[in-house]
């Protein structure tokens, strides 16, 4: 009866209890946590990118060494998982944009689908430009 403390008039007893593994209880909670976790892979890629920059700054031999290391199975696996998370980040981020960004043109609100689509178009353009610059222009 008094085991749960529900008969006391202590307001603290009314606090809901959330289990430590709450985000494993539902698919949507899990996907939310995966979205949040994507930031770890974003941070890893900054580290990876800076290792590349450092190698290029040091000289050609270091750049070749970087390329060799990047082909190690563990690194390739980590980067493959990172790519999945980073793409998930991109999709979830762009799907959120129409909800937080209100753009009006000619006194009318631009539909969210158009704002979302423009971000995907920008993604395609930026990807193409980056690839073009890196692969020789």
């Amino acid at each position, binding site marked *: 009866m008094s085991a749960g403390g529900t008969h006391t008039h202590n307001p603290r007893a009314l606090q809901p209890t959330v289990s430590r593994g709450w985000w494993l209880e539902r698919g949507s909670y899990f996907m939310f946590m995966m979205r949040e976790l994507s930031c770890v892979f974003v*941070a890893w890629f900054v580290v990876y990118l800076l290792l590349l920059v450092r190698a290029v700054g040091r000289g050609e031999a270091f750049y070749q060494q970087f390329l060799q290391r990047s082909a190690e199975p563990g690194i390739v696996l980590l980067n493959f998982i990172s790519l999945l998370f*980073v793409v998930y980040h*991109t999709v979830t*981020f762009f799907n959120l944009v129409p909800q937080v960004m209100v753009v009006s043109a000619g006194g009318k609100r631009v539909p969210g689908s158009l704002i979302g689509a423009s971000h995907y178009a920008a993604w395609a353009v930026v990807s193409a430009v980056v690839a073009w610059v890196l692969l020789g222009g």
Partner: protein
Amino acid sequence: MAKLRLEPFLWLLFSGGGVFAALMMPVLLLLFGLAFPLGWIAPPGYAHLLAVLSHPLTRLVLLALCVLSLFHWAHRFRYTVVDAFKVKHLSMVITPLCYLVAIAGSVVAAYLIWRVP
């Protein structure tokens, strides 16, 4: 009070980093993480990559990508750790630690990008 006024600015950095990472990281990761190492595409030659990296515009974009992405990480990670592990009582430690890592990382990024000849 100071924390209250800082919060919108931190959110802006989070958001900016989110956009930068969303636009640029998938293609960079696909190329440098998979396509070049696995031999799908020949990696750029050293001279070409050096020329690209030493261009002022590349340095600027790269620095913005690194700094904003790190602050994006810091902002999201602090909430993720506190929510996932239910350690709200530790947020006074976790929050400054995350931003300190982002600041330190930004300094390192600026130094490395600056040092490319």
